[in-house]
Every structure is written in C-alpha cells, then in structure tokens.
C-alpha cells in the first residue's frame, strides 16, 4: 500500500555516520564485570558520598546547623549530591554528556542480548520500561512494608509498638516513598515501554534522557531512604516549614531527595512529551492516538511543568539549611506560607500525575474486554487535557484552614469543584463503553472495573473536601487520608496492576497465572475497601492524620483497618508469587495477542524486536474498531509474509 515497502532495504551501518565516544565509548560498549552497571553505580554512590561529605566538612567545618549536634548539613548535602553524581557516573549516565563536550556523537546503541542489560544504562526503551517496573514495584513494596508498621502501631490507641520519633519517621518515609516514588512515575514503566509501540516509533525522542530519568529516579530512592540513617524526618511527605527548618539531618535527605526525584520526573516527562508530539508514525493523527497515549501526554505535561516548582521549593529549603538563608523563617523576613504555596502548586498537579495514567490504562483496556469502541473518545482526551490545565489552579484547596488568602476560598472551591467535571469524563467513557457490550472478566478487566468502583468514592469525597464548610470538619483528618487512598491506591495502583496483567504477555512473552491473579485481585479489592472505608468514619469521628494515639472508642474501627491492611499486604505476596512463578519457575508462553486487542503494540511480533517495527507502520485508523463488520485496517506494517513466519517462532 505505501511506497515504503516497495523500496529495497539499505542496510546502512549506523556507526559509519557517527564518531564514536572515544574513551567513553570504550566504557559504554564494554561488557562483563569490568564495565558499568548497577554495581559500579552503587560504588560510585558510596565514593561520591564520602567525597562530598569530606568536601562539605572542608568547606564548612564547624558550621553545624543545630548547635552541638555534631551534624553538618553542608557535609550531608554535599555527600548526597555527590553520591547521586557518583551513582550516575558509575552507571555510565555521564559518558555521553562528557564525550559530547569534545564534540563526539554516540554510536547507535547495539542490541545487547545478555540478561545483564537490565542492570545497565541503556537507551532501549523496552529495557528501561522493565527496569522501571521492577523499581516501581520495589518502591511500592518498600512503602507497603512501612504501611504495615503504621497499621501495627495503630492497633491500639495507647500502647505503642514504636517510640514517637520512630513512628513519625515511618509515617513520613511511607508517605514520601509512596507519593514521590511509587505512584508519581507510573509513566516510567508503561509510558516508556508502550508509547513508542503505540505510536509506531522505533525509539523515544531522547533515549538517553529516558535512561537518565530512570537512573536519576533510582538515585532518589537511595537518597530518600538514607533519611533512615540520619534518624528520619518528622514532617510527613508535605515537609511543612518551620518544622522542616527545625528538623534534624534526615530532612536533608528529604529535600535533596525531592530535588533529585524531581529531576527524574522532569526528564521522564520531557522525553515522553516530545516523543508523542514528534515521533508518531505517518497517519497517526491526533484523532487516532490511543487514549493511553493521550493520558501520558497530559501527565508528561504536568511532570515537566509542575515539577520545577517542587525542585525550586526544595532548593530554597536546601539553601535555608546549608547557606542559612531564611526563606521559610518568618522571624527573618521569610515565610512559612511560601513553602506551603510552592509545595502545593506542585502538589496538586502531582495528584493528577497519579490519576491520569490510571485513567489511560483503564480506558485502553475497556474496548478490548467489551469488544466495543471507546465511547466518547474526544471527550476523554479533552478531559485529560482539561484536568491537566485546571490542576494548576486549585492548589490552595489544601490550605483552606491555613489562613492563607482566606478571601480566595470561594474561588478555589469553584476551581476544585470544576476539576471534578473533566475528571468525571472517565465515567462517561467507562459507562458508555460498557453499554450493550460483551464483557469478558479477564484479570485486567477486573482491575479496570475496580478502578471505577474505588475512584468513584475517592472522587466524590474529593468534592466533599472542596466544600469549605465541610473541609473545616474533615481537613487533616483520616477522612482526607481515605480520600486520597481511594483515588491513588484504589485508582492508580489498581490500574497499575491491571496494566501489568494486561501487557505482561507482550513485555515478557509469558502469561501470568490466572488463578493466582484472581486470588490477588479479590484479596486486594476486598481488603483495600475494608482497610480504607472505615477511615472515612474514623476521620469524621475526629482522628487526625499522623498520630500514634487516638480516642478509645475508635479502636474497633482502627483494628478493622489494621487487620484488613495486613491482608491487603498479603495480597501483594500473592502477586509476587504469581510473578515469580509465571516468569521464572513455570513460564507459559503467551500467544502474540492473548486478549485479541487491536492496539498497535499487539501487532508487533513477540517478543518485540529491538527496533520495534521492521518497517515504520503507516497508520490508517484508530485502534478501536471493535465489532465492526467492515472495520478498516489499523495499519500497514509493511512486512508482508516475513512477519508470519516470525510469529511461529514465538515461545521457542
């Protein structure tokens, strides 16, 4: 059909056109133990930390932030920053940027068939996607273990499992790991892995930025976790000043960590946004873009534009604690409100960073399991962009009781309630697609339906929170806690696991076990609701967040939540068991298109070749022509019979 397949292939050697990286090229292309990989990154982190700490003490020795504490925040900051740099250097992330200064351009990266590629700095978006999946699962389980600790403490209103200092460190670490790491980068795994395949591209626009985002993000994990060695930080994930200013050295891990994670988020969003704008295959007009790609685009816009404010806020905090400026110190001409404004100006877009990919994943799966086109596609896409835009104008709904701009409360009440309109579009889309469908309850579909159940409760309670008079009652209480767990855990995390079950066969060529999957789903669904629904009532009955003591009469409800939480935790053990079983112990080869999807990503051979598409596809329709007798062809893949014999090889 297209001109493309008529033309003979020129087997151009990509290296010819490029000067290689010189000494760094030798580093980059070397394989084996003596090359750059996760191990050298860790070594780099340790050496960098030591060097930075030493330097900090040289530059600002005897310059302790808290008198006689023996802690030097300059040294701690220097250690963490150089640690991150060392990590990147060790991983090989800096080879290219340095070689570039000598005018060198990299050779096209070759396919690395060894399993060790998963532990290396690589520009292969599918490898980066899988690296991200494992990392995000690690973050999620780290945060989950901390959550188990929180629920253990809350089993009893008065007797304690932890001291108050330990408890607050656990709570803060839980919130930070979950909000900043586990859920803020879901476009990392799925966006990086899927977007190029969905838009018919052979790679992302800036593959090295994509890899950089991953390695920076994981360095952020080390930095955030390093807080535990400094005695933790007491501020929760919100890091309010002046508590931030007052806190011990663990606070540096939080501030530096936010800056580092922020860089990772910006890099990931930047690369994906540009990829979607510029790297679409011919014929892939905006109107034919899979809805998941729309959601990634909206998320990427938020990642790139909202995160700089967080980095700026963290930067000012670092200056306060090292250069001893006074940004957040009221007595010295600063303002504690400044942090609250900067933080929430980022913080609210951040919560939509955690919602939109979930919507996209679910909307992408619905047509497949209902055998119907996506209902109101344009409304869905417009809704996602609308949410992204509006989310910059609502941040003060987190500050209704703070005394900041009290006369603006009606305005922020309005914008917040307005944002629930485009948010609600996902229900129009979902319910419309279910209409007169033929629903197959495969495991991904179960997760998708669960999102609709959970997020409804989360979204509606959001509207309660935005009503200022009601906010007076529930702000800062377990009600808020339940609200955002229903939106984030009930929404995004359910979608995330649904996505894993759905795309796993494509990513690994293996099928997840269905029985274990069902057990996982039902445990997770039931115990999620049993854990978090009581929290609405607990909050209404007067229990503030982040406390270790509560009223005697709330013990029953708290115990229900705690015990359910343990079972919720156990459901993830089932997932891990399934994961390990289905990949390593008893792998079952997946058919190339197990769900019968029309999506472009499923039209590639399994496993997906290094360059995704042997010929750049020409897109001729959107991927939602289900149950249409005369459906147009989705795309011209331009490979003819060649492809069929490759299909046969699957699983060998």
């Amino acid at each position, binding site marked *: 059909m297209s001109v493309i397949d008529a033309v003979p292939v020129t087997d151009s050697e990509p290296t010819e056109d490029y000067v290689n990286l010189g000494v760094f090229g030798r580093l980059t292309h070397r394989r084996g133990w003596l090359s750059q990989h996760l191990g050298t990154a860790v070594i780099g982190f340790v050496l960098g930390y030591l060097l930075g700490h030493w330097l900090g003490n040289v530059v600002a020795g005897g310059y302790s932030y808290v008198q006689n504490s023996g802690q030097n925040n300059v040294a701690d900051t220097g250690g963490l920053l150089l640690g991150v740099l060392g990590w990147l250097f060790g991983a090989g992330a800096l080879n290219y940027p340095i070689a570039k200064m000598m005018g060198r*351009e990299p050779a096209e990266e070759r396919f690395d068939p060894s399993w060790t590629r998963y532990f290396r700095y690589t520009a292969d978006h599918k490898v980066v996607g899988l690296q991200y999946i494992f990392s995000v699962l690690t973050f999620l389980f780290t945060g989950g273990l901390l959550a188990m600790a929180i629920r253990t403490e809350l089993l009893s209103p008065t007797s304690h499992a932890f001291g108050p200092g330990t408890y607050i460190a656990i709570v803060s670490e839980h919130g930070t790991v979950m909000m900043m790491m586990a859920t803020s980068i879901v476009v990392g795994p799925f966006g990086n892995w899927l977007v190029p395949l969905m838009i018919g591209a052979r790679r992302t626009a800036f593959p090295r930025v994509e890899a950089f985002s991953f390695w920076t993000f994981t360095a952020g994990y080390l930095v955030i976790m390093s807080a535990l060695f400094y005695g933790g930080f007491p501020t929760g994930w919100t890091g309010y000043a002046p508590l931030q200013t007052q806190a011990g050295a663990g606070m540096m891990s939080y501030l530096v960590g936010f800056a580092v994670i922020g860089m990772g988020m910006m890099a990931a969003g930047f690369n994906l946004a540009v990829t979607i704008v510029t790297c679409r295959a011919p014929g892939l007009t905006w109107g034919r873009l899979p809805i998941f790609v729309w959601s990634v685009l909206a998320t990427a816009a938020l990642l790139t534009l909202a995160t700089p404010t967080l980095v700026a806020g963290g930067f000012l905090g670092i200056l306060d604690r090292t250069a001893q400026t006074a940004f957040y110190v009221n007595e010295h001409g600063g303002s504690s409100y*400044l942090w609250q404004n900067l933080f929430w100006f980022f913080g609210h877009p951040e919560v939509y960073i955690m919602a939109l990919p979930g919507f996209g994943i679910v909307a992408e799966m619905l047509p497949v399991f209902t055998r119907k086109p996506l209902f109101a596609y344009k409304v869905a896409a417009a809704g996602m962009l609308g949410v992204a835009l509006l989310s910059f104008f609502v941040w003060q709904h987190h500050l209704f009781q703070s005394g900041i701009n009290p006369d603006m409360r009606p305005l922020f009440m309005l914008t917040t309630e307005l944002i629930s309109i485009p948010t609600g579009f996902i229900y129009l889309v979902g319910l419309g697609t279910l209409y007169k469908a033929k629903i197959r309850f495969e495991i991904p579909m179960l997760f998708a339906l669960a999102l609709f159940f959970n997020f409804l409760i989360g979204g509606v309670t959001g509207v309660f929170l935005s009503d200022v008079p009601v906010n007076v009652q529930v702000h800062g209480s377990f009600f808020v806690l339940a609200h955002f767990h229903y939106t984030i855990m009930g929404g995004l995390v359910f979608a995330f696991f649904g996505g894993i079950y759905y795309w796993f066969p494509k990513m690994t060529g293996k099928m997840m076990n269905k029985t274990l999957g069902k057990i996982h789903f039902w445990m997770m669904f039931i115990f999620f609701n049993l854990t978090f629904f009581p929290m609405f009532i607990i909050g209404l009955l007067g229990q503030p967040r982040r406390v270790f003591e509560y009223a005697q009469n709330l013990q029953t409800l708290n115990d229900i939540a705690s015990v359910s939480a343990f079972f919720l935790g156990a459901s993830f053990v089932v997932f891990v068991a399934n994961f390990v079983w289905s990949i390593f112990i008893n792998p079952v080869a997946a058919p190339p298109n197990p769900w019968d999807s029309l999506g472009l990503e499923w039209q590639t051979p399994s496993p997906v070749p290094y360059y995704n598409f042997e010929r750049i596809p020409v897109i001729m329709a959107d991927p939602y022509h289900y149950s249409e007798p005369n459906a147009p062809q989705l795309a011209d893949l331009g490979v003819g019979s060649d492809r069929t014999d490759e299909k046969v090889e699957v699983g060998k």
Partner: protein
Amino acid sequence: MTATARRHEVMTSTPEEAEYELRQSINSYWTGGRLLVGMFTFFVASLAFTYFYLRSSNSGGLWRPAHVTAPTGTGAAIFAFSAVAALLAVVGYRRFQSGGVQDWKVAGWTAVMALVIAMGLQIYQLTQLPFYPGSSGYASTFIAWAVTNVFLLICLLYWMETLLAQSMRLRSALPVGETVADSASPRAQKFRGNLESCTFFFQFAAIVAVLFWALIYLI
C-alpha cells in the same frame, strides 16, 4: 532470545524511513527546546514568585531593611556579560543561517568567554556580599538567584560549547565543499535543529537575566 531479536540487532531503514526519522529528530530538537524553556520558566517563575511573596508579606519588617543591595557594579557586569552572550548567540545564528559558519563560530566562542566571565563574576560576587544570607528576605532571594544563575550559565555554556565542539568535528566529517550550514547530510541537518533550539534558549536566558537584574538591583 529468538531469531527475531537477533535479526533486528541493527536497525535497517529504507531511505524514506531514514528521511522520516531524520525529520522526527529535527522536530524533537525544536519541540524539546520549547519544552525545556517551559520547564525553566516554571523554575524561574517560582523564584520570582518567592521574590514577590516575601516582598509583599514583609515578615517582621525584614523584607529588605535599609534597602540593602547586592554589589550593583558586579551585578550590572554579570548582566552585561550574559546579555552580550545572548546577543552574540542570536547574531551569530543569523550569520550562520546566511552561510557564515565561521562568523557563528567566532561569535559562539566569544559568547562562551562572556559566559565564563559572567559566571566567575557571579561567584566572586557571592564572596563580597554586604549582608548575611539569612538577614532578610531580599538577602535570601538574592542567594537563590545567584545560585540559579550559576546553574543557568552552566547550561548555556554547556550547550554552546558542545555545539561548537561538534561543529569542529563535523567539518572534517562532511564532504569537501559542504559546511554545516548548507550540507544536506543528516548530521548537519540535526546540528542545525540543535543550534536553532540552543539559540532560542539563549533568548530565553536573556529575558530571565533582564528580569532578575531588574528585580535584584533596580527596584
């Protein structure tokens, strides 16, 4: 690994595909440059917000006691050098577009020099302050801007320097008689896309420099 993966170890492109992907990378430079400016805008706007927020709250009457100011002479010099660098980048690019590769290189290296001087002055200025960082809202904001400015200057330096270095290597790589300004080779085309974005970023940086010069030293 299956045969499929092994077969595609090296990507093979038809000429049309190569052309299409080349267009994509050039567009990526354009879009990426704009998005990068968007990113920096939000960062810098956060600092400007900080400035105005602290100024208007004036906590404890300590926004800017006795109108302390960072050394204005040095400040003006930093601004001047940054502005000159931006101007050179823009003018050089104009010349480049009309074929004056050499002119652009001279302008570029001069801009790099100007940026290095500006950065040196900015760091020097930090050692000459008549106030302590925590003594007022203004003092704090100044420190944040100074550090940001150093970072911004490093970004500009890095981008310009890598382009210049690349152009030198390119000269020998291109067929005789062609220059990066007119060669149709993919590398030259990408180079031009990159340079366009870089110049755009310099213009943005000039606006930021003006804005903060006014905020810190003038008003």
